[in-house]
């Protein structure tokens, strides 16, 4: 079932007229003409919708924290700073069907009382920003933005704000700093943005996909939306699949699809490219733990793993991972986990804002030590050193970038320690060839 991308392949769906012809802005009409802002928040709560940016926090609950002091403006800010390696779903949604995001923003702005709403988009998505600006102009021309929208008395304008290249600005308080024209240094919480956000006013920051999902929630009603999926994983999710698969791309799934089906069926990834075998996968964007093949398709208990928040994290970090942002990165049997982890460490080192020493220094050390191991200069003690460095970053920083940098290294060592050992013991051979699949796809014995 598709809710967000139902009309994604319709020609011209990028433009207002076609979007409208396919039922677009009906949910906005329903909300603004027949519902109160409180009723909209209530539907979102009932839907069980969780933040699609990575943290998975219940959206309705987040909205209910928004402070409403008399005479102070409130703001909704859309986080379109999509930068988590492996994640390119928001880009696809915005460039394909921009009015869906605008409609979601309009309904959400109405619910939260935001008359100036901002889309903070990463600077590299320059052409996507242009698409959004055109869509905003169209929506305004048709009376879906501006003053007294649909006679509801509600005024709303959406502004597209372009960033300039900084992963950290995807962290909501860094994003707000950047929106204020400053360096993207995350703020210490509390106060939370819901109380003191942009320009010290109460602010909600939500991911692109989350806000787009508000449209089907209002369209079908929160209770109906909550029937899709399993347990607390309700609705549909965009998964951006990449790496060594036959069909990289963006797929909308209901939150109950088995990982095995997602990876191997022709409807989705279409299996491993070149007829090779699966070695490992990072299922939710580069920050979440990598899993070897034998822990990806089944949990440690031997149950089929599903594409849900709960099933992907089953077993905690010992044997599980996270749904995260839905960036599904697949490694085939010929890939080197050490090298892949090194590129991620380099990424986090580059993107650390430099505010907290454990992250600023630690990410550099992680990169350096991993570089040494990858290039045949590693010592056996380096493996424990990596473990020690990451454990001193995790939990010791203002924002989650520290954790995000630590987790991939920890998981790589946890599950692929013998590949690291092999690199250290066979430095010359490791420069020539990769360790291969080894035992990482072998069936695991289930205890008990």
């Amino acid at each position, binding site marked *: 079932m598709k809710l967000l991308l139902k009309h994604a392949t319709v020609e011209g769906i990028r433009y207002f007229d076609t979007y409208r012809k396919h039922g677009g802005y009906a949910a906005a009409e329903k909300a603004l003409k027949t519902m109160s802002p409180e009723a909209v928040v209530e539907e979102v709560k009932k839907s069980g919708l969780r933040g699609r940016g990575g943290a998975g926090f219940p959206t309705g609950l987040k909205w209910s924290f928004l402070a409403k002091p008399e005479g102070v403006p409130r703001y909704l800010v859309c986080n379109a700073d999509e930068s988590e390696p*492996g994640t390119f779903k928001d880009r696809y949604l915005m460039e394909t069907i921009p009015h869906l995001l605008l409609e979601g923003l309009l309904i959400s702005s109405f619910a939260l009382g935001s008359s100036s709403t901002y889309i903070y988009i990463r600077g590299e998505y320059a052409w996507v920003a242009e698409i959004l600006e055109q869509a905003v102009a169209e929506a305004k021309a048709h009376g879906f933005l501006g003053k007294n929208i649909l006679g509801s008395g509600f005024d709303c304008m959406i502004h597209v704000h372009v960033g300039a290249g*900084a992963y950290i600005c995807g962290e909501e308080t860094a994003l707000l700093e950047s929106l*204020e*024209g400053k*360096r993207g240094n995350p703020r210490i919480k509390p106060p939370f943005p819901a109380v003191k956000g942009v320009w010290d006013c109460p602010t909600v920051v939500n991911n692109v996909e989350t806000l787009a999902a508000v449209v089907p929630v209002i369209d079908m009603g929160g209770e109906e939306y909550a029937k899709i999926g399993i347990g607390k994983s309700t609705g549909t999710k965009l998964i951006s699949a*990449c790496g060594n698969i036959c069909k*990289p791309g*963006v797929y909308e799934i209901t939150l109950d699809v088995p990982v095995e089906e997602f990876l191997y069926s022709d409807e989705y990834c279409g299996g491993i490219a070149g007829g090779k075998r699966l070695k490992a996968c990072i299922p939710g964007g580069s920050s979440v733990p990598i899993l070897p093949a034998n822990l990806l398709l089944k949990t440690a208990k031997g149950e089929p793993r599903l594409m849900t928040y709960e099933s992907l994290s089953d077993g905690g970090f010992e044997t599980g991972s996270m749904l995260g942002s839905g960036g599904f990165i697949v490694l085939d049997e010929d890939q080197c986990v050490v090298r*892949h982890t090194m590129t991620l460490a380099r990424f986090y080192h580059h993107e650390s804002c430099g505010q907290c020493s454990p992250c600023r220094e630690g990410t550099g050390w992680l990169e350096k030590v991993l570089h040494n191991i990858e290039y045949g200069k590693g010592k056996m003690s380096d493996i424990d050193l990596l473990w020690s460095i990451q454990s001193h970053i995790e939990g010791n920083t203002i924002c989650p970038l520290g954790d995000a940098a630590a987790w991939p290294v920890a998981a790589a060592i946890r599950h692929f320690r013998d590949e690291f050992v092999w690199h250290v013991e066979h430095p010359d051979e490791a420069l020539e060839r990769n360790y291969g699949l080894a035992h990482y796809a072998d069936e695991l014995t289930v205890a008990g």
Partner: protein
Amino acid sequence: MKFSETQLKRAQELISHYPEGKQKSALIPILHLAQQANGGWLSVEWMDYVAGLLQLEPIEVYEVATFYTMLNTKPTGKYVFEVCQTGPCMLRGSDQIIDYIEEKLGIKPGETTPDGMFTLKTVECLGACGYAPMMQLGSTYREHLTPERVDAIIDACRKEAARVQDN
């Protein structure tokens, strides 16, 4: 050294997106504009000009310009190849593409060709992982790169530059 009429109008439009007195919020969008106006980088003079425009202290502009990857405080080549090298691109052969461009242009990442035409940069994830390997060229992405595609891009850049010079 200042904005043209059109650029100034765009700058005023950007400032109007934010509440009264919060014009600093327009800083990054306006720095993009200034960078475009100055051929791809921000000189101290341009940064000071933007500071004046937004009624900011120059340091408030410098500290922002040096924080964000897309804002250049040094001149670059006419065409900047920003090749992604993060994990998902690496899995699809970005290392080989970077090697190929190095060999083809005779420069290392961070360097510019002697004729000032091309700069090669390695960058971190640009959100095109499903279309890897890729690079950013100006305000566009070039995806599914192969050596042949790289050749075609280099040729197209050279031709465009020659055409501009002829006119």
